[in-house]
């Protein structure tokens, strides 16, 4: 490996990249567009709690409970209640048994079921206890001893509500990284199809020099943009080193995918045709962050899951190395395999 030659090739690749007006415009506008999307999304969580209650046989007095910030809606069945909690209509659902008052009068403990959305804040539990006590006091004139069972529908992230824009942050960051697949794959495809790679390979530059240069250029472009984005949107405020590491591995993954795509493609259109399905698959895991419960465990086979998961947990919940090291390791493993295969197939095409 000759670093003087690699430096020359990197400089050439970056120069060519920035001369492609379409790709350059896509890159800059993309970054601006993602920032706009981020900042127009709500930056806070709605503090009013909308609670669904299923209470057969009880008067509509529940609707007039004097709790500030609570909006209570009565539903017709427990199934409807669970469905609306699952789809996010209510952040909490409360189900009272039909013989609630009779049991109270008989001195028995009625069972009250509470349903929470996956990411309902911890404060809601406290609010619900207050609500139940107020409710009991209103009905009987004394505090009640009731059995309350709680069930979290989905992953338990109680106590940490995330504003929509911060939910979107990992999605936008990986979008920025993976959009570079398109630019780099196009650059490599042109190099092969126009036979400029052949001209380089009859100079002292070797195939390894070429791949190293392309990797540096590709990782650099994707990494710098993603870091810039994360810095602007405050994604680097907590554990910035982990964020830098995961974005770097993500950029390397994008570079490996570019190698694979450019080994299959012959021109810009075929680069586009191969890149779009790859991008769609890579973005799927971020939907799980945007819409909790929207995806199932199979997304863990998609390498970008570990990128999104790490960015999301570190930037939004302050997770540390101990929490994310397995995700980082799996992501690194995927990246090494994909980059390795990419180099092998592209090398075959070059030779």
């Amino acid at each position, binding site marked *: 490996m000759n670093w003087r030659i690699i430096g020359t090739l990197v400089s050439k690749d970056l120069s060519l990249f920035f001369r492609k007006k379409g790709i350059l415009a896509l890159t800059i506008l993309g970054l601006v567009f993602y920032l706009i999307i981020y900042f127009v999304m709500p930056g806070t969580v709605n503090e009013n709690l909308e609670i669904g209650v299923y209470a057969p046989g009880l008067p509509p007095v529940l609707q007039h409970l004097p709790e500030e910030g609570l909006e209570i809606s009565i539903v017709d069945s427990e199934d409807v209640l669970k469905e609306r909690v699952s789809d996010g209509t209510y952040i909490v659902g409360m189900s009272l048994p039909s013989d609630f008052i009779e049991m109270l009068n008989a001195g028995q403990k009625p069972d009250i079921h509470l349903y929470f959305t996956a990411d309902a804040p911890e404060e809601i539990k406290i609010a619900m206890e207050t609500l139940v006590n107020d409710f009991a006091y209103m009905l009987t004139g004394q505090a009640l001893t009731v059995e309350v069972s709680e069930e979290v529908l989905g992953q338990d992230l109680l106590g940490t509500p995330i504003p929509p824009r911060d939910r979107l942050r990992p999605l936008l960051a990986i979008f920025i990284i993976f959009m570079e697949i398109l630019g780099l794959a196009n650059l490599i495809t042109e190099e092969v199809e*126009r036979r*400029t790679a052949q001209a380089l390979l*009859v100079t002292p530059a070797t195939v390894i020099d070429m791949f190293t240069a392309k990797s540096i250029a590709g990782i650099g472009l994707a990494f710098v943009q993603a870091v810039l984005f994360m810095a602007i949107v405050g994604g680097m405020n907590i554990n910035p080193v982990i964020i830098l590491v995961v974005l770097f591995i993500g950029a390397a993954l994008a570079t490996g995918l570019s190698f694979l795509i450019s080994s299959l493609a012959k021109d810009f259109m075929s680069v586009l045709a191969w890149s779009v399905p790859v991008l769609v698959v890579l973005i799927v895991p971020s939907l799980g962050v945007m819409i909790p419960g929207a995806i199932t465990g199979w997304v863990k086979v998609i390498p970008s899951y570990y990128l999104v998961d790490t960015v999301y947990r570190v930037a939004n919940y302050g997770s540390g190395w101990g929490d994310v090291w397995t995700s980082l390791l799996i992501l690194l493993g995927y990246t090494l395999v994909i980059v390795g295969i990419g180099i092998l197939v592209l090398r075959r095409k070059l030779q």
Partner: protein
Amino acid sequence: MTDYAIVAEDLTYYYGDLTAVDHINFQVAEGEILGFLGPNGAGKTTTVNMLTGQMKPKGGRAVLMGMDVAKNIERVQGNIGVCFETTNLYEQMTAIENLNLFARLFGVKPFDASEFLSRVGLEGRGKDKVDTYSKGMKQRLMVARSLVNKPRILFLDEPTAGLDPTSSEAIREVILKEKERGATVFLTTHDMMEADKLSDRVAFMNQGKIVALDTPLNLKRQYGKRALKVKVSTESGALEDREIDLDTPDTPAKVQELFAREQVVTVHSEEATLEDIFINITGRGLTG
């Protein structure tokens, strides 16, 4: 061994069952121009690819400047220049940027791109993007690019194919200047006139084998037929053609008889072209 710039020893390459280059052997002396001729599919490009380290031989070896190409690829490639048949320049860059890029890859310092541009008649166009160039200008720039490291061996693949006479002549002048400088030139071409005019020796390649290798003159002597082409005027005033073979024992008598009996208008000597000789040897044309 080191007196030769290029040595091919039993060089062989095959694609699956097809033998593209079949155990060929030849040497090219330092400072010599070798014309490498043959029809499409004869194995010329595969041979050049093996000599320049782009392909690893399946058998035999290529030795350039005393170094086995497969074992010293970077040193070999640092001392050769290759001009491809198909244009492969960075078209979004200017001519100067293209030359500077390759000079940096070869580690040439200091480097003055304008000197190389003027050698191929492109002075004043160095700051233009290559995609604004005509085919002839691009080909001249390709030749200039192959010279940036002042190569000891220059490989030129069809350098004048499809070019206008001015561009072709500019490239021929560069080739002769390179010979004067002491470079060895390996010239692959379909243009028989060009090969005849420029080459010290020519090699004919057919079906993966070298079927003849000698100076153009010796090949013509060995395989060609020399003749006198004569136009005579008849009694009615019409012109008729006569041909006298120059290499027979009774040639002098026939010439004497022709001038004595007929009214000779024009006389031209004719010798075989390299194309004729190739057909004579292989039974097929060079463009086939």
